[in-house]
Structure formats: C-alpha cells, structure tokens
C-alpha cells in the first residue's frame, strides 16, 4: 500500500490551513500522487452550512472512504468533486478543489467535461431503461470517444469485462439493463462509468441497497479498479470502509475530524470522536 498523505481538518477559520498541511509530517511530499486536493471547502444549502473548511487530499490508485454519522455531509462533499452540487438549487460551494492541479471551479472548466473525468456511482443502481449495450455505449457516444460500431463494441466489451460483468451478460447485451439483479445493475452502472475512461470514480453508498453477496462482489470490483482509478466511496458501513479503502476520512457535523490510513483509523484512531464512532460509543 502506498504511503498516503494525511490531513487533519482545520477548524479555526483564522488558522492558515495550507501551511499547516505542508508542515504536516505525514503529508506526501510530492503532490503528484494526489489526484484531488481540496482546500477550505465550505458548502452551504441556502443559509445552512453543510460543510466547514474541509481539507483533504485524494490519492491516486487507492480507495478513499468517507464515513460519519448521517447528515454529516459525506455525500455533499463527494458531490463537490464532480460539481454535481451545481444541479441542486441553492447549493453553494466555496474553497478550492483541484483535479490534477487545476481548480475545478474555474470559469474555463466545463462541468460536463469534468463529469466525464470524474465518474459517479449512486446508492441505488440506476441503469438507463435501455439495453445493456446502450447503457455502456451512451457515454462514449456523447463524448465522441467512440464513433464507429466496432469501436463502440470494443468499449462495451472492455468496460463490461473490467466491471466483471462480461461473462454474465455477454449473451444478452441487447436485453434491458433494468432486467438484471441489483448487484449486476450496480456493476453495470460501474461499467458505464468506466466506459468514458474517467480518472476518478465517486461512489455514494454503492452497496447500501445490496445484499451481502452482491456487496462482496462490488467490493472485489472496487479493489480491482483502484489500480487504475482514484476511487472515493461514501459508506455507512464502517466494516465496508475497513474492507475496501486504503484511506479513511471521518466526518462529523459538517467537518472533517480525521483522515488517515484506514488501518490506522481502525486500529488506533487519533481523535476521540473517531474512536467513539467506529467503536459504537456515540450519542
């Protein structure tokens, strides 16, 4: 497992968080390994502040898990990375979020392109009510990544293979994607996200609607995919965060309490709130 930089959240708004981050002993010296860097991110829904000065680095080639009690802002923060919050009325994001060093809030960044680079998978599997084939082909088509039939065929096959679904569906590519089981649908959705060759994949509780077997399959898939993508996953299940992630961030009441290596967080968390939460001593 790569050594992952560690950022502790800054609560005092007056503190200069960046310096603090640079001087953090565990911070990775080369920023190159960090796919996404978030600095002082605040999110408001109308007047209500949902997130307060979040600082985090999302590493490449690893799974980062967001955990925390309900309503602590995990999903909200996740949606910052591909600007899905733009689609929510009254949601306002401030602060800096860099993808490969570029601020994603810059004028020149088209959210549509950003979302092609930062894929997303949701809680409930949401295949389009079209054929399996069309589900996968849609993304490459709108982005002009594949135009000829053979190109698209190829993308469809590789994506399904990578999602570990090819063997199960290759004989019924032209049947509706909604006819698959929940777990298969979720893998189909992941394949669909892969098909546009994103660099980051965001997953918001991708297994919470699935049973343990389907969950295990998705977890296996995530484990395989992380070699190629930076993966960020929101999960309610601490056990799941422990199983799939290499880095874990614990949110509480809209702030980032602790972030670090998953093993560290689960064996020896630094913050009392983290320990209380993961051991079931909260509230």
């Amino acid at each position, binding site marked *: 497992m790569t050594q992952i930089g560690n950022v502790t959240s800054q609560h005092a708004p007056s503190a200069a968080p960046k310096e603090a981050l640079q001087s953090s002993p565990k911070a990775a010296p080369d920023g190159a390994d960090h796919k996404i860097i978030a600095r002082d991110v605040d999110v408001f829904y109308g007047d209500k502040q949902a997130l307060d000065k979040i600082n985090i680095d999302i590493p490449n080639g690893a799974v980062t898990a967001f955990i925390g009690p309900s309503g602590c802002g995990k999903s909200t923060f996740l949606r910052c990375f*591909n600007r*899905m919050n733009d*689609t929510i*009325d*009254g949601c306002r994001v401030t602060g800096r979020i860099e993808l490969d060093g570029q601020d994603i809030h810059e004028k020149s960044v088209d959210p*549509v*392109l*950003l*979302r*092609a*680079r930062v*894929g*997303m*998978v*949701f809680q*409930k599997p*949401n*295949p*389009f*009510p079209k054929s399996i084939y069309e589900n996968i082909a*849609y*993304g490459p088509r*709108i*982005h002009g990544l594949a135009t000829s039939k053979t190109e698209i065929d190829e993308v469809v096959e590789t994506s399904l293979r990578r999602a570990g679904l090819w063997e199960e569906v290759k004989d019924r590519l032209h049947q509706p994607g909604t006819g698959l089981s929940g777990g298969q649908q979720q893998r189909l*959705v992941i394949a*669909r*996200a892969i098909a*546009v060759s994103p660099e980051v994949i965001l997953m918001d509780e991708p297994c919470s609607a699935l049973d343990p077997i389907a969950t295990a399959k998705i977890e296996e898939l995530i484990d395989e995919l992380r070699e190629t993508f930076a993966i960020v996953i929101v999960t309610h299940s601490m056990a799941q965060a422990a199983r799939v992630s290499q880095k874990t961030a614990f949110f509480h009441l809209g702030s980032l309490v602790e972030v670090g290596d998953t093993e560290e967080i689960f064996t020896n968390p630094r913050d009392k709130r983290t320990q209380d939460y993961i051991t079931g001593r909260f509230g």
Partner: protein
Amino acid sequence: MTDMAASTSSSASTTDRISKSLVKRRRAEKRFRLYGQIAIGFAVAFLLILLGSIVKDGYRAFWMHEIQLNVTVDADRFAPEGQRDEASLRGINYDAIIVQSLRDKLDVENSRTNRKALRDLVSQEFGFVLREKVLADPSLIGQTFSLTAPLDDQADLYFKGEIKRSVAEDNRPLTDRQLDWLDELKSQGQIKSKFNTLLFTRSDSTQPEIAGLWGAIVGSFFTLSVTLLLSVPLAVAAAVYLEEFAPKNKFTDFIEININNLAAVPSIVFGLLGLAVLINFFGMPRSAPIVGGVVLALMVLPTIIISTRASLKAVSPSIRQAALALGASKNQSVFQHVLPLAAPGILTGTIISMAQALGETAPLLMIGMVSFVPSAPESVMAPSTALPVQIYIWENASERSFRDRTAAAIIVLLGFMIVMNLAAVLLRRRFERRW
C-alpha cells in the same frame, strides 16, 4: 421466571379484553365495507341508466325509412314548351310530380288536402333529389324512372313505432288516412328500412330526416387539429422547462400557480377569453374552427402541462443523475433520456386532453360555433359547428325526431371518445413503468 409467569397471565387478560372488543369491531367492519359497495353500486347504476337511456333514444336514429317511387316527369305538364334551360328546369314543381306518383300508386283522389297530406309523407329531400337528377340528365323528362328518397321524419317515426295508432288522431301529427297510406305503401314494398348513412354524410339541416353530422365532424376535426398542433408543443416545452430547468424562484412559482389555476378555470371563461380577445380584439372570424381550436388549446394547455410534468416527474431522478454524472449536459439528459421515457405518459395525457376538448361545448358556444351551418367547413377559417355543439343545437330543437338524432349524435361522440380513451389506456398499459 416469576416475572415470566406474571407477564403470561397479564397477556392472557390482554387477549381476553381484545377478544371482547372484537365482536363490535367486526360489525363496524362489515358496515363500512357495505357503504363502499353501495357507493360503487350507485355510481355504476347511474352510468348504466345514462348510457341506457341514450342508447334507447338514439339507436333508432341509425335506421331510416326510404320510399321508392316510380316517378314520371310528365313532359307535357311540366315542360310543355320543351324548355330544357336550367332556369326553367329549376322552376318545375317537383313536389307535385312526387305527389302525383304517390297518388298514382295509392289511387287517391286528387284533392288539395290529400295532396298536402301525401306531400307530408316524404321528405322535402325527395324534391331536391329529383331536381338534381333531372338537371343532370334533362332527357329524363317524359320518362318514368324509379327514385329512392327518405320518408318524412313523422312517417319515419310511425314505422319506428313512436307514433301509434292507439293515440287519438288529434294528438298525433299523422292522420289515420296518412297512416293507412303508409301501411299501404309498406305492404307494396315501396318502403324499406335501411341504415341511416345520411347521419354521417349530411350536415345540419332543419329537416330532421336529412340532418347529419358530417359538418360537425369535420368542424370538430379542424378544431381539434388546431388544438393539437398548438397545445402539444407549447405544453411539452413549458412542462419540460418547469419540471427540468426552471430555477426555484418567484417567477417560476408564479407560472406554476398560474398553470394549476388555469387547469381549474371553468371552460366557459376560456370561451369569454376567445370572444373578447380573439374575435373582438384580433378580429378573427366568428364560428371558425381556428378560433375554437385556439380557445380549446389554451384550455387544455394546463392539463397537458400537468400530465406531462407528472410523467416527467415519474421518471426517476436517478436517471437524470446517471446521465449528468456521465458528463451529459442538462439538455442531453432531458432530451435523450427523460423525455423519451416520459413520452408514453405525455401521449396518453395528450389523447385524454384531446378527448376532453372534443367533448367541450361551453367555450365553443361563446365564440359562436353554435350557429346553423348547413354544410361542412372547407377550411379552418370557415364557419362551422362541432360535434358537441351540434348535440346542443339539436337538443334545443323542438321536433320529436331531433331527440333521437341528438341521442345518436351523442353515441357517435361517445364512440370517438371511447376510441381515444381506449388508445390512451392501451398506451398506458403498454408502456407502464414502475420505478
């Protein structure tokens, strides 16, 4: 364990108490259920009575009685100077020829009263038919040929059993003599009953036996075409905007309230709008399908918007998110995913709205489509009636036969509506999707 025992005994008493309460509750249950059944019984009974009474009144109008006569256009009598020019041919008293034929047939003495009585047995239409025939082929003058024409509506009613001999002669429109003649003709095989095609091929007329619905059907068709072409694009666009794009602000709230209110505004008010704005302000023609169409379009607009929005809303938000998260733009997600998925719902909503527009009467009254128009309109700008208005007009007419025809017109109208609604139901069945 003592605790357990205690709880068991307490639960036993609980059970007892509940059992005791159950008798009464069961009765209440039965009563309640009965109310529901009665209510449904009422509703269904009403429907059956309504439909039954209409069918009972209307089915007769689909049949008519025709008389076949051998007529002789006596050249000496009617065209003594051998005139064959149009004006003089038009001037011929064709009714007299027909009465003559009848007289010949029935061997009736030639008196003024008899002539009048005989004349009243056949439709005025007979004369027109004969005239047209002669005009088309003047060589017929002097010859004898066979001609078929509708009976007069009263005679028709007699054969349909509406006018009975048992009624005192003074209380019925046909005299005993006339009835005898009719029976005679019938026994000679001159009078036949047949399907009433005139009902569908003719337009309105003051004479019930030849009054038809063709003009009204064409008028309704034109009106609905205008309505459809105008309302659907507007409504779908508006619905898409409001449901998918509109930011949540005062203006869109206002639009929304507006639309919901419009949906419940009485239809007659739309008629007033059409009258005041379209006819009086913009100077559009009265009684024209174009005005009717616009008014009905405005009227169904909110309905289609609402049903379109409902079907858009029924498309799971996860589909939108899926598309957006793939890097589709908002427009792409709406037009490539959401709208196609909502299309069946939109279509059914549209059909149902069109059916509603088809049956709508009050606004058309306001814009003058109630006038008497004896021919089918040629364009959307021409004066016209519409099916429901035709029903209203006929219902107001005093002739007994119009009552049957009104019912028949209703049956036709309902037929159209059933077809449309059936289409909607089938569509809904076919494309019903659960999220």
